[in-house]
């Protein structure tokens, strides 16, 4: 308080009021829409509704250990996240490296590559669901034209191919995002290290490994972090494409939480699962940051 008074100019008690008034709306929104629901959710997850009424217990968390559906859904989420992230990263990096050069029509390529990312996920889900329909979809129709037998290629309806299909749709939609961030990172790298590497006679692969990658590290960290957080939470596309099926094959944690909360009305258990997801995301994010920062200092 004394500091601000000195800063603004000693004119009485009114001076601290103005800054507080400015940030009050933002704090109110943060408290009401983020902090309060988080605490409420924690409260709900620690309560159980029994015949005797509402009691405090760790029952919801204990149930997580014996619930096969939860474990399977968690497994699916991790498989989905890993596969999609790997494909998106490699493709995005490749595209960014390609389009970093001055080639003709570069801006056209860049603009058209960004289109999938700009579509709402629900729209992407609906369109791909129609395209991948085993009997009336365009993909199987095209394959049939080339004489390929599509009897077993039921994409989102096949237990083997469903996970692959939803991963492919996610890669289609979000590789442009990875591409965008990595391209920005590449363009921020100065020319000097490259010139030095050229003088030292380093090969293209060595340049890439020892010059490009280390300087790109902050961008890589950001893009991996953001994508991982999004992939762990994935809901829209899977809900529209397969609704978790066939037979639970593509059910992820978010879908299971949704079903538990809104179809079975078991908010306590759903809240407990949400906290597990939150903890998982936090742990993975911390690992990312530690890993990539540690390498930098080495």
């Amino acid at each position: 308080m004394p500091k601000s008074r000195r800063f603004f100019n000693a004119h009485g008690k009114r001076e601290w009021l103005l800054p507080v008034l400015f940030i009050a709306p933002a704090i109110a929104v943060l408290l009401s829409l983020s902090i309060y629901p988080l605490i409420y959710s924690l409260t709900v997850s620690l309560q159980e509704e029994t015949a005797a009424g509402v009691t405090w217990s760790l029952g919801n968390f204990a149930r997580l250990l014996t619930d096969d559906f939860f474990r399977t859904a968690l497994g699916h989420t991790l498989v989905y996240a890993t596969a999609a992230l790997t494909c998106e990263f490699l493709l995005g990096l490749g595209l960014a490296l390609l389009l970093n050069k001055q080639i003709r029509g570069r801006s056209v390529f860049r603009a058209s590559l960004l289109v999938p990312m700009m579509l709402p996920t629900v729209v992407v889900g609906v369109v791909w669901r129609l395209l991948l329909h085993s009997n009336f979809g365009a993909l199987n129709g095209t394959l049939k034209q080339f004489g390929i037998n599509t009897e077993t290629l039921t994409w989102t309806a096949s237990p083997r191919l469903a996970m692959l299909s939803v991963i492919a749709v996610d890669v289609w939609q979000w590789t442009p995002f990875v591409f965008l961030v990595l391209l920005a990172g590449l363009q921020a790298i100065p020319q000097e290290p490259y010139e030095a590497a050229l003088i030292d006679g380093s090969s293209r692969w060595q340049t890439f490994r020892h010059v490009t990658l280390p300087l790109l590290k902050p961008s890589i960290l950001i893009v991996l972090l953001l994508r991982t957080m999004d992939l762990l939470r994935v809901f829209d596309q899977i809900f529209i494409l397969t609704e978790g099926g066939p037979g639970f094959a593509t059910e992820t944690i978010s879908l299971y939480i949704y079903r538990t909360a809104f179809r079975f009305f078991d908010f306590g258990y759903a809240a407990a699962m949400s906290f597990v997801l939150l903890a998982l995301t936090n742990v993975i994010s911390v690992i990312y940051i530690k890993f990539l920062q540690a390498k930098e200092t080495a």
Partner: protein
Amino acid sequence: MRPTIILTLLLLLVLTSCNRTVEPTPRQLTLAIVSGVEGDALKQAAADYGSQFGIHINIAQFPYANLFEKELIDLKSRTGAYDLIMLDDPWFPRFANEHLLTELTPLLRGSGLASPDTDFVETSLALCRHPYESGPLYALPYVGNSQLFFYRKDLFEKYSLKPPASWTDALTAVKTIHENEKAGANGGQVYGYVMRAAQGNAAVADFMPIFWAFGGEMFDAGGKPTVNSPAGIAALEFMVELGKYSPPGYASFNADDVGAHLLQGTAAMSINWPAWISSFNDASKSKVVGKMEFTTLPAAQKQGQAEIGNWLIAIPRDSHNAQLAVEFLIWATSAEQMKRSAQRGNPPTRKSLFQDPELLQKYPAYPAQLRSLESSRPRPRTPQWNEIENAFGIFLSKANSGTLSPAEAMNQANAEIEKILQRAR
């Protein structure tokens, strides 16, 4: 000084324009209905009522799963947003058990009716009572759906097949048509059978008639789950057998996919709801106008029993316009209005309408429908039905997609249902 005055006036303007009351304006009703053929008839009836009596009826239309969520959340949080809701009969025990619905008998009496009249089909009206059949009345039935077995009569005539009386006959017919119709009317394979086996409501609804016909029961007399009885496993094995002659990907099919195959003429037989009959004969949607025939469900070890799937209309306990809502309900379920609805394709729930000569001319299958409705069975009336159906549906879908064998699927399903019941105790 001037800026301050202007600012104050603007602020006052903004504050006074934010004048929203919780009470809805009088002479207005809000109706929550399901999207698709089953909800359209009620939607049109509501429009008629609105123009006839000058009462504005707001329609909130949602797909099946979303409708359930919206209704449950709204009724539990007691907002009174809806005055009338459509309920699929398996949801009814959940809503009634948690005291979310208004008891109708006092309201009916207030409008001059002693009780719901005896013209309603007994099985339909029984669904609206909690406990089932004997308890007080909480809803009135509107869409008189009970399953029928649909088949292509032109293909049956072609191969001299008789309408199947048993599931074995049905399988023979399925194989015959499937093997011989490699290049059907559209140039592609005509599949012998089509069904929906998407996990959840879809798979369970299509499986129950087979399950019951083979002698399976979901629960024994003591309330323990018995889906993995030998009869139950045999029924699932039969379903998977039928699946061999169904379009690929049927393990994820919903009602729309089944409808699409039947309308396109690419499948010859199916279990389906009467609400689809008018679509089959609508030339703008169907390629099989006049070719679809229906009969009651085939038998196996036991008599074929259709699964009843009526849509009921109920009044939430916290509706602000209960009296107005019940007047609409009485009007909509009256014989005259139900007849108009029936002419638009809605299966009625009144016996007199199934025997009405005008309607019989348009829907010659009404006697079959009435027989099906009167001998139909509801799905188990337990408040945990949603969870049980979800778990059971997952395993049915797994068996149909080949991930699990029928025996494994039924055993795991039984264990899961046991867990659900344990939690509820």
